[in-house]
């Protein structure tokens, strides 16, 4: 199951130098801060800080970005508990019992439960990834270009249709992303869609475009908005002793943590679904399995543990498709794939075969990150409780400036900030009219890969359509792709049922 020689190499890779570890704590803090501020997303933090990894080696860059990812998953729970506003979409179910606990004066215990559940969830997700990555990649290596092309389309369809209310607009976002992703020099050497600009010969600068769409466009939508903070809540202090009591409360219900971990990892592995759905599924399952279901929604710590363990373990789950297929399942993993590109690394099963030690090193480092999250989270909770009250008006222009600096750093000229500007405005308009931003970004990232796989399929098949009939996996994937168009309706029904079941 596990490639032990690669695992041993990974251990030596992590223990020979302390340099990669230097970025973990700053990464966790960045993730915690961005996660806890309502409106700022974890993927936004990862996108804005991606250029900072230019001077890092690949392993250090991955450690830095996954630390932000890990911190952000817990950060979202802080404002969910203290303000009844989920800092990220993955902390919606945390508000159900976290805020009632805070209203009862048990906000410290709720924060403790959330922190411990997040730590356990993160580690759980990566343990499953550690066990599954090798067999999965061995299986994936058997897939040819035809299957990979359909997998890309399927993944994109899932992301496009499951992230929003409107399937047509979601699909159009993905398709537009795919088209824009093919601008520039084609795999067979034809220059297309560059409008005569030398800056577009290598295609649209993907990472500045991603920063514009993920980070800057969201900020336009946030300007002028303020969150209603419960004044009594905002003045309450943070008690270390009571947070430790929360740790114990979380550990008292291991079944909830394991259930949440399993649900989070499984759902996190499905492109487009991830932590925003897993926290709700885990909450609903924990409530259903409880002997005292009527206590949920009134301040039951198990509700907080269920939500937080699921959203944190989704991170490990989402890495499955990234490492095994080289296809991101959502915003966070899209940024990680961009980091692969930035360091001239092609993701997917061949990467695992050739650089298994690096993949295992990332997984092992995340165990340590999980433990560090517990410590860092514990000591900066007081700061986070203060940060959630900082008016957004101060943070918005600062994130814009960071985006401009970062984009300049990536391109080395002002085409980077200009790309951020164009895609920020486009992203803002797309958000406003219910288009899917993750689908557009992932389409942009995968456009040239999809074209390459399709061209290889045509070369191998000689352009004969009958070739497909001899590829059963391709056919199964095509059927799954078509079936997945019905999934949004099912998820919507489930969401509505869960929200209705919670007494507000």
């Amino acid at each position: 199951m596990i490639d032990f020689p690669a695992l041993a190499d990974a251990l030596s890779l992590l223990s020979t130098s302390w340099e990669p570890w230097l970025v973990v704590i700053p990464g966790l803090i960045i993730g915690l801060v961005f996660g806890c501020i309502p409106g700022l997303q974890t993927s936004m933090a990862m996108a804005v800080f991606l250029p900072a990894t230019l001077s890092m080696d690949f392993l250090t860059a991955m450690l830095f970005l996954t630390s932000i990812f890990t911190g952000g998953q817990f950060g979202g729970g802080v404002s969910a508990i203290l303000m009844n506003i989920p800092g990220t979409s993955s902390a919606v179910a945390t508000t159900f019992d976290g805020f009632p606990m805070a209203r009862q004066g048990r906000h410290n215990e709720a924060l403790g439960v959330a922190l411990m559940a997040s730590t356990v969830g993160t580690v759980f997700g990566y343990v499953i990834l550690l066990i599954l990555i090798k067999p999965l990649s061995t299986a994936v290596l058997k897939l040819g270009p035809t299957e990979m092309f359909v997998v890309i389309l399927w993944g994109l369809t899932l992301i496009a249709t499951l992230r929003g209310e409107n399937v047509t607009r979601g699909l159009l976002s993905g398709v537009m992303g795919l088209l824009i992703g093919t601008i520039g020099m084609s795999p067979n050497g034809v220059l297309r869609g560059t409008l005569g600009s030398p800056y577009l010969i290598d295609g649209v600068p993907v990472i500045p475009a991603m920063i514009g769409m993920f980070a800057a466009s969201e900020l336009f939508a946030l300007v002028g908005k303020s969150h209603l903070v419960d004044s009594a809540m905002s003045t309450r202090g943070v008690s270390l002793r009571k947070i430790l009591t929360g740790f114990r409360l979380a550990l008292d219900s291991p079944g909830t943590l394991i259930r949440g971990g399993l649900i989070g990892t499984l759902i996190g592995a499905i492109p487009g679904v991830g932590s925003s759905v897993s926290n709700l599924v885990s909450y609903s399952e924990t409530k259903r399995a409880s002997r005292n279901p009527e206590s949920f929604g009134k301040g039951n710590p198990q509700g907080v543990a269920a939500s937080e363990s699921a959203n944190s373990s989704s991170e490990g789950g989402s890495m499955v498709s990234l490492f095994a297929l080289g296809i991101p399942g959502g915003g966070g993993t899209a940024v990680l794939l961009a980091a692969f590109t930035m360091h001239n690394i092609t993701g997917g099963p061949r990467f695992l075969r050739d650089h298994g030690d690096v993949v295992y090193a990332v997984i092992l480092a995340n165990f340590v990150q999980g433990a560090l999250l517990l410590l860092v989270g514990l000591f900066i909770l007081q700061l986070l409780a203060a940060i959630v009250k900082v008016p957004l008006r101060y943070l918005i222009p600062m994130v814009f400036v960071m985006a401009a600096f970062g984009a300049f750093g990536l391109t080395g000229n002002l085409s980077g900030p200009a790309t951020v500007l164009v895609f920020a405005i486009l992203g803002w308009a797309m958000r406003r009219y219910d288009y899917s931003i993750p689908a557009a970004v992932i389409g942009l990232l995968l456009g040239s890969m999809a074209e390459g796989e399709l061209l290889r399929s045509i070369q191998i098949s000689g352009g004969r359509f009958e070739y497909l009939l001899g590829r059963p996996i391709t056919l199964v994937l095509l059927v799954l792709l078509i079936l997945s168009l019905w999934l949004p309706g099912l998820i919507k029904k489930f969401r509505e049922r869960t929200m209705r079941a919670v007494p507000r």
Partner: protein
Amino acid sequence: MPDTQVRSRLDWGDLSLVLLFAAVTIAYLADAWTASGSLRNLVLLVPVSALSLMLCALVVVDVVRRARAAPEAVSQEESPAPVGQSFIDRYKPAVLMALFALYVMTLPWLGFDVGSAVFVAAALVMDGERRLWLIAPVSIGFALGATLLFGWLLPYPMPTLVL
């Protein structure tokens, strides 16, 4: 419902965006076709463009359907803009976009140091902050810190005016 009423309830922004997508698709396909009409060049672009145009058509139908289904109560005449709001308050996202565009376009002259400080200060003022003793240190301090940090991180020089 008469056509004039449907027209007045159409979300023109929504419609413009989808028409922009359709126009970009057609322009890109035409450019790619002109560059090379070979199967290898167009094998992905033709089906994806066709799908894009089909989805654009569906969105246009959706926009029109929404305009037809819009209740009387939400017509523009019956939902006037809130009284007492200034132009800036009503169009904050657009004003911020304009500020960010100005910031990016003036970077070659103002540099990252001065440009960033001016942009942060202007954005704060636009969003209602009036305390100069806060605006000045926040904007200058942040621009200074970010310029020094990125100047140290990046392997090539950044345009700056003072630093």
